[in-house]
């Protein structure tokens, strides 16, 4: 594996400009200062943690996602490139979803094979030929981006169903500002705190034509047992909208209402954090108690906006991912700004043969997996693991894709032995409204805290960092 690009030191070891102030500041710190701040940060989070206690009823505090106090810094020019790339990517994703449920031109042109759409479990036949308000499907996207050198950003995954993590982006910044006012004074860090405002504007812009002038927005949660419940209640609070469960809503005459103390009140836009399968027991899983009976009928009648739309998963599974560069070219007639990791689709016999022959060099992922589970990192796997994975691949080649092992960039991180480089990724949040695309400067940086680890998922020893975008 090639040496990783360090975002502070670059490849050659010279400080990169965005990190000059941070490096100087780190050099001035008295010994023990950062570890002490780490403890304070943990206390602050624990305090919030006590208030959310979302993970594990048994011991809330243990399940806090570790937070690293050293910020990850992006220069204005880097961010500008990223922004353009993200906007382009999400535009293409939207066009793709619209097309797949509409004219199917992408299939006719032979860009994406038909079975990848029609036999994809997350394709929703129910959405076929239905118009959604303003033709927007992906209102909120969380695009996972990694970098391997000074100039190249790769998209690792497009999350266009119900991406989460934005509450960490906001809370991380709050905690950092409380702990390091001096460090903020030395930088000009673009703010992220307006994200809820931008989200609300996005959601309101997408209200159906039949809605009142000031549309009613709600956030639909599966309830307190969902692992992201804290984020749901946090966002509802910041947005100033009702946090509803399925039982708070009902459908009458193709209109959605919520039950309030003043009677029924019409709902125009639903920011839903429930998976498609559970949205409406009359349309999807009949045993779902989380959804709203008849919601789909109101939706296809055009009387309510769901954000994100139903069936967007057809655009973000890992098999479709490999077609993204062509999808971008097909709909936008542009070259993709963000790169795609070269991907072998094990569904194709030629690709499968290559993957099986090079298993120990590749990362193999489940097409429908997430969270870093069910993944093989070839260079790190022992013989038995490789053999077991080979068997799985041969049994179900369609279920897997493979990619080269990327040397994710590293960022200075406060660990036991001091400040040391650790691998990171980045999830910026892209909001698409009727009027425009909004991206707050920053995102959620996830960091693999274990030395040399490439797995940044919080379920597997990953932590988070505040992400700074410097104002030019």
């Amino acid at each position, binding site marked *: 594996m090639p040496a990783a690009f360090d975002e502070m030191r670059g490849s050659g070891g010279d400080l990169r400009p965005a990190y000059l102030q941070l490096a100087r500041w780190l050099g001035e710190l008295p010994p023990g200062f950062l570890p002490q701040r780490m403890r304070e940060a943990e206390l602050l989070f624990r305090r919030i943690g*006590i*208030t959310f*206690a979302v993970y594990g009823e048994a011991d*809330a505090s243990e399940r806090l996602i570790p937070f690293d106090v050293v910020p990850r810094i992006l220069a204005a020019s880097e961010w500008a490139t990223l922004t353009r790339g993200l906007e382009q990517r999400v535009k293409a994703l939207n066009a793709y979803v619209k097309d797949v449920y509409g004219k199917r031109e992408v299939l006719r042109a032979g860009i994406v094979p038909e079975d990848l759409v029609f036999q994809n479990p997350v394709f929703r036949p129910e959405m076929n030929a239905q118009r959604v308000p303003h033709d927007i499907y992906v209102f909120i996207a969380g695009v996972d981006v990694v970098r391997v050198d000074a100039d190249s950003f790769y998209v690792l995954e497009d999350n266009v169903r119900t991406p989460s993590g934005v509450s960490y982006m906001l809370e991380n910044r709050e905690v950092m500002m409380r702990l390091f006012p001096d460090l903020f004074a030395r930088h000009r860090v673009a703010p992220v705190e307006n994200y809820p405002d931008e989200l609300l504007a996005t959601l309101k812009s997408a209200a159906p034509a039949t809605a009142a002038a000031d549309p009613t927005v709600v956030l639909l949660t599966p*309830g*307190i047992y969902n692992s992201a*419940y804290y984020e749901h*209640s946090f966002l*509802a*609070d910041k947005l100033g909208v*009702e*946090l*509803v*469960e399925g*039982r*708070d809503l009902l459908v009458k005459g193709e209109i959605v209402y*919520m*039950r*309030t*103390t*003043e009677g029924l009140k019409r709902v125009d836009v639903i920011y839903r954090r429930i998976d498609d399968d559970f949205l409406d027991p009359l349309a999807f899983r009949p045993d779902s108690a989380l959804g709203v009976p008849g919601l789909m009928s109101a939706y296809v009648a055009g009387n309510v906006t769901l954000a994100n739309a139903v069936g967007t998963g057809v655009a973000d599974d890992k098999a479709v991912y490999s077609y993204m560069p062509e999808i971008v070219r097909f709909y936008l007639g542009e070259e993709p700004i963000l790169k795609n990791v070269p991907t072998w689709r094990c569904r194709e016999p030629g690709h499968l043969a290559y993957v099986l022959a090079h298993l120990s060099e590749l990362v193999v992922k489940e097409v429908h997996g997430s969270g870093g589970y069910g993944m093989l990192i070839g260079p790190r796997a022992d013989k038995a693991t490789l053999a077991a994975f080979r068997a799985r691949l041969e049994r179900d080649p369609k279920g897997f894709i493979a990619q080269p092992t990327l040397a994710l960039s590293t960022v200075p991180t406060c660990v036991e032995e001091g400040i040391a480089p650790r691998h990171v990724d980045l999830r910026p949040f892209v909001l698409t409204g009727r009027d425009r695309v909004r991206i707050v400067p920053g995102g959620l940086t996830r960091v693999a805290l274990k030395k040399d680890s490439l797995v940044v998922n919080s379920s597997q020893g990953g932590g988070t960092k505040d992400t700074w975008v410097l104002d030019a």
Partner: protein
Amino acid sequence: MLARTADNLYWVSRYVERAEYLARILEATQRLSALPIAYGGTTNEWDSAVATAGCAGAFFAAHKEANEESVTEFLAFSPDNPSSIRSCFEVARSNARAMRTALTIEMWEAINETWLELRRFQPSSMSREEIARFLRWVQECSLRFDGSAYRTMLRNDAYWFSRLGVYLERADNTARILDVKYHMLLPAHEHVGGPLDYFQWAAILRSVSALTAYHWVYRESVKPWLVADLLILNDQMPRSLASCYENIVRNLDSIARAYGRQGPAQRQARAVRTRLQNSRMDGIFQSGLHEFIGGFIADNNRLGAAIAEQYLV
């Protein structure tokens, strides 16, 4: 606001209030049962504790005998009793979580920390002293939650619904004590029972935290009909039925004003309050204290149903 949110606010308050009441009953009973027999400690106070808690049916389905151990376990810790202190706090906390955004941070912390702390109490190994400490802790938790609500909530419908929960529950609790102990409060009783009943009366006052208040209001020794007067008609006394209804009416009025609409809940609450205002203790004694209390409990339940029907579903 969402009907479910209002419902949660209302029930969180009710459950916290109920937990406090249970703690007071247990405390008063513990005191009473510790009295030497010569001072009236003979009757089974634990039976009556179960009755005042309103769960005699459930208790005797699970236990043969009401004694200190079984009743304390059942009313304070039993996970099988949906109205035990533990269950009350657990339900209150899960209701609170489901409407996190409607609570102030202080209220949430009060209820969440109560719930976290609750796990540290191991009922099986608790001495009598530890139980006494536990019961005081329960009352402090309730005070903290109530105080947080009072000091930090916006004065809007969320606040009014949470207050309604407090006062409806409180009225029910006070009425329940009166229902079980009414025979101790009849005017004729003084001649029957004699001064030894002081301890019974004091226990009643204690379970509604009114022993000191009594002396300030009446400035004389404890007399049963005055105890009844204090708990039913005296609107200075925060746990009296009259005071509870004054607050219920005020909060329902606030809701009606804010929503520009009133309904059966407002009308029913006003009717009960008017009846309390127009009553005198001797009149109540004449027409039957027990009947009066029974009628009140039914009215109070009806009002609860009317509020639910009008706002909470």
